[in-house]
């Protein structure tokens, strides 16, 4: 009951947030300069044609005629019926564009998140159990390495090393291969570097939280009690410390990783040429593809909502003390 009401409120709020974000984006887009339009007009002017006519044709083609609010209402109306609009810069429906790009993004972000979560938690726990030792510093260094190195630089260097010099992996991301045979070894090979780059960059935040949480439990009485029961250190680590650590960790996993991945994905996808969501939205913004920009803006909102819900469920599952009645 409590959880349901809570969920309903969360979803309702997400709707409001999405609306606000969409509106702001829509208005900003309208005021931002359009390099494409500028090019068309210059082209027309350069050869003596009427630049205004060219601009009108362009506006017509891109659906940019009429007052702002009218266009916005129309967009919202379409959205309500499930029509996310038509992407002019890709000649396909926005929803199709997003659904096409999404699997490519998931293909490397999911393993990257898994990698960074496992490594982050492992290093965090290790570091907490061995605070202020040299191995702690070494482990921490490993965790901080990825976040300290600019992703794009790292990606380029890795490509030069492993793809060009050693030839172990291909330089180019083969989208066709990824789409038709996502589980093949060849696909895994081309995903190794992006996963590594993104994964290492996300370790630090997970590790930091895991470490902070674990530090609270490492010396907790129940850990001592478990030890007094005769539980091994490994058991203590995996059962007694890890579990309560996971509870608050799940809250940051969604939020922080979402942030890291959404922002880092621009860079990783550009460097590795992966046609995922990051590039989709980057190019949409660059080319002022209004419908696509709005669509790609909605995606993180939806992911955040979904992620928050999942996280709450995980929380409820992991920590019996949580009660949603009063939240």
């Amino acid at each position, binding site marked *: 009951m409590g959880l349901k009401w809570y969920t309903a409120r969360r979803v309702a709020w997400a709707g409001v947030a999405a609306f606000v974000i969409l509106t702001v984006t829509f208005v900003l887009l309208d005021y931002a300069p359009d390099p494409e339009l500028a090019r068309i007009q210059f082209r027309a002017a350069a050869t003596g044609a009427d630049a205004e006519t060219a601009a009108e044709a362009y506006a017509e083609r891109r659906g940019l005629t009429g007052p702002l609010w009218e266009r916005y209402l129309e967009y919202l109306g379409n959205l309500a019926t499930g029509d996310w609009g038509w992407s002019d810069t890709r000649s396909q429906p926005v929803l199709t564009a997003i659904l096409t790009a999404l699997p490519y993004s998931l293909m490397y972000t999911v393993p990257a998140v898994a990698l960074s979560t496992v490594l982050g938690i492992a290093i965090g726990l290790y570091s907490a159990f061995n605070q202020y030792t040299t191995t702690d510093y070494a482990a921490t260094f490993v965790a901080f390495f990825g976040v300290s190195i600019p992703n794009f630089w790292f990606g380029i260097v890795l490509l030069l090393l492993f793809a060009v010099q050693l030839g172990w992996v291909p330089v180019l991301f083969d989208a066709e291969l990824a789409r038709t045979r996502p589980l093949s070894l060849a696909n895994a090979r081309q995903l190794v570097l992006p996963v590594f780059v993104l994964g290492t960059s996300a370790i630090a935040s997970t590790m930091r939280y895991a470490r902070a949480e674990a530090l609270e439990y490492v010396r907790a009485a129940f850990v001592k*009690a478990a030890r007094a*029961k005769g539980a091994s250190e490994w058991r203590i680590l995996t059962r007694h410390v890890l579990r309560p650590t996971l*509870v608050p960790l799940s809250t940051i996993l969604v939020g922080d990783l979402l942030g890291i991945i959404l922002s880092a994905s621009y860079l990783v996808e550009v460097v590795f040429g992966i046609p995922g969501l990051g590039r989709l939205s980057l190019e949409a913004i660059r080319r002022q593809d209004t419908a696509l920009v709005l669509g790609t803006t909605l995606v993180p909102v939806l992911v955040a909502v979904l992620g928050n819900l999942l996280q709450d469920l995980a929380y409820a599952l992991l*920590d019996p*003390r949580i009660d949603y009645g009063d939240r």
Partner: protein
Amino acid sequence: MTDPPAAPRDSLLHVEDLRTRFHTDAGTVTAVDGISFDLDDGETVCLVGESGSGKTVAAESLTRLIDDPPGEIVSGTVRFDGRDLATASEAELRAVRGDRIAHVFQNPQRALNPVYSVGWQLLEAIQLHDDVSKADARARAIDLLDRVGIPDPATRIDDYPHELSGGMQQRVAIAMALAGEPDLLVADEPTTALDVTIQSQVLRLLESIQSASGLGLLLVTHDLGVVAEVADRVVVMYDGTVMERGSVHDVFERPSHPYTRALLDAIPGRDVDLTPTAARDVADRDPSSATDSTTGCRFRSRCPHAVDACREGDQPPLHPTPDATTSAPDGARAHVAACVHFGPDGDPDVVVDSAKSADSGASADESAGGDRR
């Protein structure tokens, strides 16, 4: 050590010259500085001392539960059932922990893992040492809960710790300690965190368990009332060392060490908590003393009977008190006190007489009775 040598017969637990240190930024702290005591099957020994006297560290050093690092057991033996735990391997210790020596901690709420059900934690305790099926373990767990007085154990077993009251939680913790059918139960302030009304229930539970199963009980407490109620023998600690040791009768009736006397004197009626604040009032010790490489008696700065001799050497060894021969013949169980006035060159009367003059009532009489040598 001029302490009496090891007990002639093998006691269940024989601790000798145990020394535990903590390495901190500010230097090394010797939290337990060469304590010795014995504990027999079915016997209840109380480790008494104010906050910070090292009694908890001492209790946790037995099975090396102290955090290492920064803690470190630097010397001494912990002979348990013929084996020296101080030098045992980690695996050997694990086999002993929970199975032979069980612990009950001060705050049950914290000693239970909040994210697991009571049953899970009980089953863990059972299955860690006994290779039994899950169903059998569960049956045993319910039985254990029943034994510690949890009503409706078959239902409560699936509860989470936060769903139980403090007293119930401590009962669960005790049940968990009993899961391995230990020979020795180390209970560290098991009642401190509980309501006054619950305290006695839990104490009685411990007593009844002990009498039913005949296990040894090492009770760490600062509550002299508890000591008087349950202890067979008492070990009084101050600043990491044993100040006085003897049967509960000897120590309460004929307190010998000035510290013990001060403790008891501070309490009208003698059955009130020696709270940390009260302890400070008594001792008002210099907080910096802990890291000092101690010379002389640790209590001397607060001791009304301090003499020059107190300043020299180490903490004085445990000297037999005048009544030692009358109460217990063997060294390990003798009534002893670490005070120069009880040494070969000392005069116990310095302590006892002054107490006599300052005190009134029963204790004065009893002291007077024991002050002849």
